[in-house]
C-alpha cells in the first residue's frame, strides 16, 4: 500500500505545499510547532479541505481538487490519533473503542473489542471512564479506538507529547509493537527529534509548510541536505565556509581551516558538526593539521543529569560576554577525565563528522 499526498493549502502565515508518497511502515514527520504538520494530517483524514492537489490511498482517491472529489472523513478508513486523544468523556473505555465497530454484528463486535482491549493491555479498564484512567492508558485506549476500524492508514498527531517521561517510553514501546504488526502507511507527526528518529522508519522534515528533507532517517541525520534541515534535526554548530581545496574548507566563523572527508558540494556555504561528535584530546602537540585539533577555552556549561553541554571558545580565551564558537555534549563520566585539566583544552573536529551544506 502507499499513501500518496500532493496538496497545497493556504494557512495564515504560509502555504502548506507538500508532495510525497509514504509506503508501508511508519514515516515520522518532524517539524517545529506551527510548521503545518497537524494541518497535513487533517487534510489526509478529510477533516480539512486542501485548496489544491490530491490524496490517494493505495490507488483509492480520497481527495482530488481537479476532479472535485472529497471523500468525507467517515468513508476514508483513515485512523487518526489526536494529540489530546479526544476520547469521548461520556463513554467507557470499551464504549469508546467499540464506537467504530457499530456496523458489525454483535458477536463479531464483542470479539473484536476483547481482542483490542487485550492487545492494548486495557482489559481490566474496559468499564472505566476516560477521566478515571491515566494519561498513558488514555493514549492506549485512543490507539485501540483508532485501530478498531481496521484503518488503511494510521495518522498520529504528537502521540507522546502529552505524557510524562516514564510513561512515554512505555507508550513508545507499544507504538513500536503496533507499527510492527501494522504493515500499512503510518504518518507520525512530532516536534521531538529523538522520537522521530526512534519511531520512524523514514523521515520527512517539514518547515513552514514545505518538505525540507524526505528519505532514510540515517542519511538525513548524517548528511543533512540544507542548513535548515541540519538545524531542525538538532545540529547546534555551524560556521560559514569557504572552499580552499578539494577536502579543505575555511570555517570563517570559527577562524580555522578544516579538513573534511565528505566530497565538497560546490559551493559549500556552511560547515557543521553535531555537539556529541566533538572529541576532546590530550594536546595538539602530536596532531597533524588534517586532524583538525584546536585549543579551546570553556565559556560556560550547562548540565543535565547524565550529560553536560560545554560552550567552547576556540583559539584564545573568550572575552567577557563573547559568543562561544562550539557546543560540545559529553557524558559526565568522560567529562570527569578532563575537567580538572588546565585550559586550554583541545578539541578534535573529526573530518568524518563534519558535514558541508550548500547555499
Amino acid at each position: 500500500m502507499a499513501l500518496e499526498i500532493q496538496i497545497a493549502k493556504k494557512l495564515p502565515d504560509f502555504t502548506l505545499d507538500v508532495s510525497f508518497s509514504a509506503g508501508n511502515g511508519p514515516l515520522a514527520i518532524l517539524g517545529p510547532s506551527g510548521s503545518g504538520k497537524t494541518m497535513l494530517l487533517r487534510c489526509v483524514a478529510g477533516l480539512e479541505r486542501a485548496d489544491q492537489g490530491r490524496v490517494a490511498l493505495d490507488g483509492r482517491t480520497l481527495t482530488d481538487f481537479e476532479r472535485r472529489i472529497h471523500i468525507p472523513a467517515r468513508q476514508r478508513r483513515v485512523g487518526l490519533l489526536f494529540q489530546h486523544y479526544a476520547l469521548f468523556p461520556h463513554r467507557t473505555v470499551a464504549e469508546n473503542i467499540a464506537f467504530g465497530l457499530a456496523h458489525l454484528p454483535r458477536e463479531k463486535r464483542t470479539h473484536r473489542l476483547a481482542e483490542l482491549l487485550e492487545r492494548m493491555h486495557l482489559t481490566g479498564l474496559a468499564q472505566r471512564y476516560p477521566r478515571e484512567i491515566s494519561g498513558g492508558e488514555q493514549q492506549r485506549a485512543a490507539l485501540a479506538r483508532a485501530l478498531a476500524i481496521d484503518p488503511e492508514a494510521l495518522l498520529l498527531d504528537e502521540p507522546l507529547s502529552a505524557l510524562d517521561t516514564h510513561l512515554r517510553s512505555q507508550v513508545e514501546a507499544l507504538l513500536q509493537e503496533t507499527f510492527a504488526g501494522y504493515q500499512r502507511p503510518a504518518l507520525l507527526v512530532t516536534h521531538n527529534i529523538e522520537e522521530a528518529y526512534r519511531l520512524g522508519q523514514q523521515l520527512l522534515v517539514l518547515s513552514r509548510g514545505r518538505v525540507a528533507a524526505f528519505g532514510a532517517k540515517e542519511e538525513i541525520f548524517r548528511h543533512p541536505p540544507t542548513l535548515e534541515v541540519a538545524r531542525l534535526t538538532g545540529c547546534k554548530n555551524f560556521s560559514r565556509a569557504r572552499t580552499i581545496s578539494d577536502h579543505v574548507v575555511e570555517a570563517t566563523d570559527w577562524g580555522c581551516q578544516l579538513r573534511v572527508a565528505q566530497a565538497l558540494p560546490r559551493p559549500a556555504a556552511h560547515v557543521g558538526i553535531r555537539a556529541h561528535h566533538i572529541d576532546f584530546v590530550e594536546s595538539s602537540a602530536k596532531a597533524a593539521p588534517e586532524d583538525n585539533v584546536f585549543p579551546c577555552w570553556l565559556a560556560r556549561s550547562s548540565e543535565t543529569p547524565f550529560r553536560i553541554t560545554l560552550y567552547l571558545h576556540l583559539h584564545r580565551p573568550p572575552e567577557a560576554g563573547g559568543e562561544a564558537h562550539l557546543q560540545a555534549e559529553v557524558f559526565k563520566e568522560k567529562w570527569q577525565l578532563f575537567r580538572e585539566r588546565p585550559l586550554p583544552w583541545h578539541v578534535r573536529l573529526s573530518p568524518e563528522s563534519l558535514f558541508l551544506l550548500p547555499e
Partner: protein
Amino acid sequence: MTLTTPMDWSPIWISLKTSSAATLITLAAGLAAAAWRERRTGPLMALVDGIFLLPLVLPPTVVGFFLLLLFGRNGPLGQLLLRLGATVVFSWPATVIAAAVVSFPLMYLTARAALEQVDLHYLEAARTLGASEWRLFREVALPLAWPGVLAGAILSFARALGEFGATLMLAGNIPGRTATIPIAIYFAVESDDIRRALAWCLIDVVISFALLGGLYYWAHAPAPARARLMRR
C-alpha cells in the same frame, strides 16, 4: 371577600399539562433549530436568528396577536386546519402553541450555546471512526451538550408556566380547558375575588419553588448522582 363559587383546581392541571407539552415541543424544535443553525454562517443567518428570537423580544400580546392572525379562521394555518376539520383558537392546543412559541427562544439559545461548547475534536474523532452526521449528533454532541440542553428545557418550562399574554389572545379563558394559573389569577382579580387570586398566587409560588429546588439540587448534586440523573 369570600369565595363566590367553589374552588376549581383545574388550572393547576392545565398549567402543568400545557407547560409539559410546550416544553417537549420546544425541546425538539429548539434542538433541531440549534443543530441546524450551528454549522451555518452568513448574513442570512442573522435574519434567521432574528426570527427565532423575536418571541423573546416582542410583548406576548403581540406574539398572541400574530398567532391569532395565523391560526384564526381566515389565517393561512387556520384555513388549512379548518379543511382538516379542526379549529385551534380557544382550545387547549392553543395554550400549548402559545406557550411553545413564547418559550422557544430560550430553548434555542441555550441549546445552541450548549452544542457550541462541545469540543470539536470529539466530533472529528467520531467522523474518522465512520459515524454518520446523525449518529454524531445523537451519540456524541447531544450527550455532551445534555446538561446545557436540560437547563434550556427547565428555563422553557418555567417560561411556559408563566405565559399569560399570548395564551389569553389565542386560547382565551375557558375554565377547565384553557384557563391556566396566570389566567385564573387575572380573572380572579378582575372579578374582585382577591382571596382566590391570592390562593392561586401562593400555589404558583410553591410550584416555582419546587422548580427552583429541583434546579438547585441538580446544580449541587454530587457528581455520581448527577451522572445518574443524566443517564436518560
